[in-house]
C-alpha cells in the first residue's frame, strides 16, 4: 500500500500553487492600484472573493459526491465528500475572517448583521455540524449515508446564501462578479482578482487531493484492522 499522500501530480500542483501565491502577493500589493471607493482595503478582496468562490465550488462538489454515494455506495465518493466538506469549511472560515476584517475597514465594525455575512456564518455552522455528525457516527456505512443525506440537504442552502443579497435588504456591496451589474473594477484589479481565484482554485484542489489520500489511507487501515481481528478470532477458533 502506498503510504504517501504525495505524487507527481500533487507535487506539480503544489509548485504551481506556491508560485501562484507569490504572483498574487506581487499583483495585489505591487501592481493593483487602490480603489477609488474602497481605498487600500480592496486588497482584502483578492483573498475574500477567491476563498468564498472556492468554498462554494467545494460544497457543490460535496453535494455531487454525496448524491453519487447514495447512488453507487462508493467509498471513493464518501471520502471525497468528506474531503470537500473539510476544505470547504476551511475556505468558509477564511471568508468570514477576511470579510470581518474588510467590514472593520469599510463599515467600521468587525460584525454587521448583514444578510450575506450572517447566512455565510450559518452555512459555516451547518458544515461544521456535517463534520461533527461524521465524527460522532461510529458505523462507517451509517456515517457515509447520513453524511450524504446531510450533504445534499445542506447544498440547498447555498443558493439561499448566494441570492440573499437580492432577497433581503443588505449592507453588503453588490456582487463584484457574476452579479446582475456589470463588473465595475479597474483592469489590473480584475486581472489580479481572476489570477487569485485561479490560484486559490489550484490550492483547494491540491489540499483536497492530499486530504483525500489521508482519508483513503485511513479507510484502508480500518479495513486491515477488521481483517486482522477476524483472522485472529479464526486462529483462536482453530486452536480451540
Amino acid at each position, binding site marked *: 500500500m502506498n503510504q504517501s499522500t504525495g505524487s507527481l501530480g500533487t507535487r506539480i500542483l503544489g509548485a504551481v500553487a506556491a508560485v501562484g501565491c507569490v504572483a498574487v502577493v506581487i499583483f495585489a500589493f505591487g501592481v493593483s492600484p487602490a480603489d477609488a471607493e474602497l481605498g487600500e482595503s480592496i486588497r482584502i478582496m483578492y483573498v475574500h472573493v477567491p476563498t468564498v468562490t472556492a468554498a462554494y465550488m467545494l460544497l457543490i462538489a460535496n453535494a455531487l459526491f454525496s448524491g453519487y454515494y447514495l447512488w453507487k455506495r462508493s467509498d471513493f465518493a464518501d471520502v471525497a465528500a468528506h474531503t470537500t466538506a473539510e476544505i470547504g469549511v476551511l475556505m468558509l472560515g477564511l471568508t468570514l475572517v477576511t470579510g470581518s476584517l474588510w467590514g472593520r475597514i469599510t463599515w467600521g465594525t468587525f460584525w454587521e448583521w448583514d444578510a450575506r455575512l450572517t447566512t455565510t456564518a450559518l452555512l459555516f455552522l451547518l458544515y461544521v455540524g456535517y463534520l461533527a455528525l461524521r465524527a460522532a457516527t461510529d458505523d462507517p456505512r451509517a456515517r457515509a*449515508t447520513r453524511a450524504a443525506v*446531510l450533504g445534499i440537504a*445542506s447544498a440547498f442552502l447555498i443558493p439561499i446564501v448566494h441570492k440573499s443579497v437580492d432577497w433581503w435588504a443588505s449592507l453588503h456591496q453588490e456582487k463584484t462578479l457574476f452579479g446582475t451589474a456589470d463588473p465595475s473594477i479597474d483592469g489590473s484589479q480584475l486581472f489580479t482578482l481572476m489570477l487569485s481565484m485561479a490560484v486559490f482554485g489550484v490550492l483547494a484542489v491540491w489540499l483536497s487531493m492530499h486530504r483525500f489520500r489521508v482519508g483513503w489511507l485511513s479507510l484502508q487501515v480500518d479495513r486491515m484492522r477488521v481483517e486482522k481481528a477476524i483472522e485472529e478470532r479464526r486462529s483462536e477458533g482453530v486452536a480451540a
Partner: protein
Amino acid sequence: MIAALTDARLIAAKDLRIEARSRIGLTHVLPFVGAVLLLFGFALDSDSGALQRATSGLFWVTVLFAAVLLVQRSFALEQADGVFDALRLSGLRPAGIYLGKVVALTLQLLVVDVVLGLGVIVFYGVSPTGIALLSVVCVVATIGIAAAGALYGPLTSGLRARDTALPLLLLPVLAPVLLGATRAFEIALGRAVGGGWAWAAMLGIFAFVELALGSVLWGPLLEES
C-alpha cells in the same frame, strides 16, 4: 402517491396515539414554552417596550426550541424500542413514513403555536392584528419546521451525542424560517411595513423544498437508522 399518503396517515396516527397516551411530549414541552415566555419577560423589561418590540422574534425562537425537543422525543421513541427495524420490515413506503412524521410533528407544533400565541397576548400585552396573515404564516412556517425536523431527526438518532448534534444541525437550517416568519409577524402586527404575503410565500417554498428532500432522502436514511 396515494399509497404513500395512506402510509403517512398510519404513521401520523401511531405517533399521535403514542403522544396522547404517554402525554410526555406536550406535558414537558408546553411547560418549557411557558418558562421561556416568562424568562424572556424577566430578561427584557416589559415597561421599556423592548418585550413588545421583540415579541415576533421571541415567539419564533421559542417555537424553534420546542421543535428541537419534539423532534428529539419523536425519534428517541423509535430508536429506543427498535421501531426503525419494524418500520424497515413493515413494507411501508419511506416517503409515507416521513410524511406521517411531518404531519404528527406539525400538529404537535401547532398546539405549541396556539398556546404560545395566547401566552404572548396575555403576558406581553400584544393585540393580535392581521389574523389571516398570522394564521397562514403560522401554518406554513410550522410545516417547514416539521419537514426539516423529520429529515434531520433520524440523522442524529442513535448517536452518543444526539442531544447536542440535533440542535447544531437543525437550527442553522431553520434560520430562513425564523427570519421570514418573524418579519411576516411584525408586518401583521403593524410593527413593520412590507409584503407580509411575500414572506409567507418564501416560507411555503422552504416547506416545499424540505418536504421534497425528505420524501426522496428518507429511503436511504431508513436503511441505515
